C-alpha cells in the first residue's frame, strides 16, 4: 500500500501524521509526506518546508530506535569476496527497507494533492482538518471535503488526537474490495478498537438481500481474522441523526464507490454535512 499524507503548516495535520505513522508501522507501506504551498517564496526556507521537516521527525520518532524501516541504518565495514582469493573491506550502509519521501508542491492544494496521488499511485490519502470550523484547512477551507469528493483513492480525514476505540463501517450496495477490508482490519488491530458494521434497512425492516449477503461475508472475514464486529441496521432517513448521536465513535468509514446507495440517497451537500459535523474521524473507502 502507498500512503500519501497531505499537510499544510497548521497543527491539525499532526493528527494525520500520527495516524499515518501507526498505519505505516503495521503495514510497512511506502509513504509520501506532501506539503502544499500556495504562495511564492520570498527567499530562505519556506514555512511549509519547516513544517514537513517537523512532520518527518514526528513520523520517524513514532518508531523505537533501531526498528524504523524508513531510515538508513547499520553503517559498518564488511569484507566482500571479490573472487580469485581477493577480499576487500567496504564501508556498508544498508538503505531503508521502506520509502519515506518528503515533497512540496506549489499551487492550489486540491490540485497539487490529487496530482501527487495520481503520479505516485497512492492508495490512501490521509490529511488532518480543523474540526471546530467544520473540517477545514485554515488557508484553503474546502480542501478536506474536496479531497473526499474528488480523489480516486480512499481518503482519511483525522479530526483530533482522540483515541480511536470504536470504528463504524457503513456497508451498502457497493462492492467492497479486499484492500479496503484489510485497511479496516489494520485500523482495528492498531487501535485495539471495537468494530461495528452498519447496513441500511429496507422497507420491510430487514436488510436488502444483496446487503445481507455482503454483510454475512464481511462478518465472516473479520471473524476469521479474530475480530468480532457487531452488526447494526439503520433506516436511511435516520442516518444523519444516527451519525450525530454516536459521538463516541473514533472513526466512521463509508464505502462510497460508483454503485454506492449512500451516494444516491444522500445529495452531496448532506453527505458533506455528515462528514463535516461528525465528531469522529472519517474514512472514505473507494
Amino acid at each position: 500500500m502507498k500512503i500519501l499524507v497531505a499537510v499544510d503548516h497548521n497543527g491539525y495535520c499532526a493528527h494525520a501524521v500520527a495516524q499515518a505513522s501507526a498505519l505505516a508501522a503495521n503495514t510497512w507501506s511506502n509513504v509520501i509526506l506532501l506539503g502544499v504551498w500556495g504562495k511564492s517564496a520570498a527567499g530562505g526556507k519556506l514555512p511549509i518546508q519547516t513544517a514537513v521537516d517537523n512532520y518527518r521527525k514526528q513520523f520517524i520518532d513514532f518508531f523505537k530506535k533501531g526498528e524504523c524501516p524508513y531510515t538508513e541504518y547499520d553503517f559498518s565495514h564488511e569484507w566482500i569476496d571479490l573472487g580469485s582469493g581477493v577480499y576487500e573491506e567496504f564501508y556498508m550502509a544498508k538503505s531503508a527497507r521502506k520509502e519515506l519521501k518528503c515533497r512540496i508542491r506549489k499551487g492550489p492544494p486540491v490540485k497539487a494533492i490529487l496530482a501527487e496521488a495520481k503520479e505516485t499511485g497512492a492508495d490512501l490519502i490521509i490529511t488532518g482538518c480543523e474540526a471546530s470550523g467544520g473540517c477545514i484547512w485554515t488557508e484553503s477551507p474546502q480542501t478536506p471535503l474536496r479531497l473526499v469528493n474528488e480523489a480516486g483513492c480512499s481518503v482519511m480525514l483525522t479530526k483530533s488526537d482522540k483515541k480511536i476505540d470504536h470504528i463504524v463501517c457503513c456497508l451498502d450496495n457497493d462492492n467492497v474490495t479486499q484492500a479496503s477490508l484489510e485497511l479496516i482490519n489494520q485500523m482495528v488491530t492498531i487501535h485495539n478498537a471495537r468494530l461495528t458494521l452498519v447496513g441500511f434497512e429496507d422497507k420491510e425492516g430487514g436488510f436488502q438481500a444483496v446487503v445481507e449477503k455482503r454483510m454475512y461475508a464481511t462478518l465472516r472475514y473479520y471473524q476469521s481474522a479474530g475480530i468480532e464486529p457487531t452488526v447494526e441496521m439503520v433506516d436511511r432517513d435516520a442516518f444523519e441523526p444516527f451519525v450525530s448521536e454516536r459521538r463516541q465513535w473514533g472513526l466512521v468509514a463509508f464505502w462510497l464507490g460508483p454503485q454506492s446507495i449512500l451516494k444516491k440517497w444522500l445529495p452531496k451537500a448532506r453527505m458533506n454535512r455528515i462528514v463535516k459535523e461528525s465528531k469522529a474521524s472519517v474514512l472514505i473507502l473507494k
Partner: protein
Amino acid sequence: MIKSLVYLNADLASSIALRYCCRLANKTNMEIETIHIEPLDEKKSSPGSGWVRKTWENGMLEEAKIKIMRLISAEKDVCPALKEPIVRIGDPETELLRELQIKDYDLFVIGLIHSFSARQFYKRMKSKFYQASSCPILVVKNLSSINRVAILIQPDDDTKLQAETFLMLFQNAAIAVDIVTCMFHRKVALKRKHLDESPGEKDRAGSSIVNRLEEAGFSPDIIALKGDAASIGDRLSDYPLVLTAPPPVTEKNPPLLECLSRISSAILFCRK
C-alpha cells in the same frame, strides 16, 4: 441438561443466533435443537386439496429443510453436531408456542439484527409469542464472548425469577455476574443524555438476589445506573448478555423497553 430450541430462518440474524447458542452450549450443559416454520401464504397456496395439497406442502417442507441445513452446515466449524432441524409449515408464532409446550424446553433462542430504530424490537416484544411463551427467551442481536452477565433489576423488583433463570443456565459455569440496578430518568426532563454509574448498595431487591447467587458460589458485583433509558441501554451493551424480567405491557413504551431496544448484544427474558 438444559433443553434449548433455536429458531432459524435462512438469514444473518439466525446465523448469529446459532453461533451464540453454540458458544453458550460450550459453557453450560445444554443440548440444542433447531426449528424452522415456513409461513403458509394463503394467497399463494395450492388451490387443490387432499393429495395435491399434501404433495405441494411436502415440496415446500423439503425446500425449507435444504435452506436450513445449508445454514447449519455453514456453522459446523463452531457448532457441535446438530440434529436435523424440525421443519413445519404454518403460522410461526402458533407453531412455536405449541412446540415449546409439547416438548417443555428450558430456553428458546432467536436472532434479531440490532437496529437504530426500535420499531422491530417493540413489535416483537408486544407480539403474541413473546407474551405467551412458557419458557425464557434469548434474543441474540450480536455475537460476543460470553464471559459476563448483567442481571438487570429495578428498585422493588421481585428478583427470585432472575436468580432462578440465571442459575438454571449458569449453575456450574465459569462466568462473572453483575447485578445492575437501574433508575430511569426521563430524557425530556434532563434535556440531554445522562448516565451516572456507581457501585450499588444491597437494597431490598439487590440483597435477595446477591445472597442467592453467593449461595450458589458466585461473587456478583452490584452496580447502580441512573440516567435516561437510552444511555443505560448503551452502557448495558458492554455486557455480552443481559438478563431481565420482561418489560410491562400495560404502559406504552416503558423506559425499560427503550433501554432494552438499545442493547446491541443479547437479552435473556425470564418467564414465570
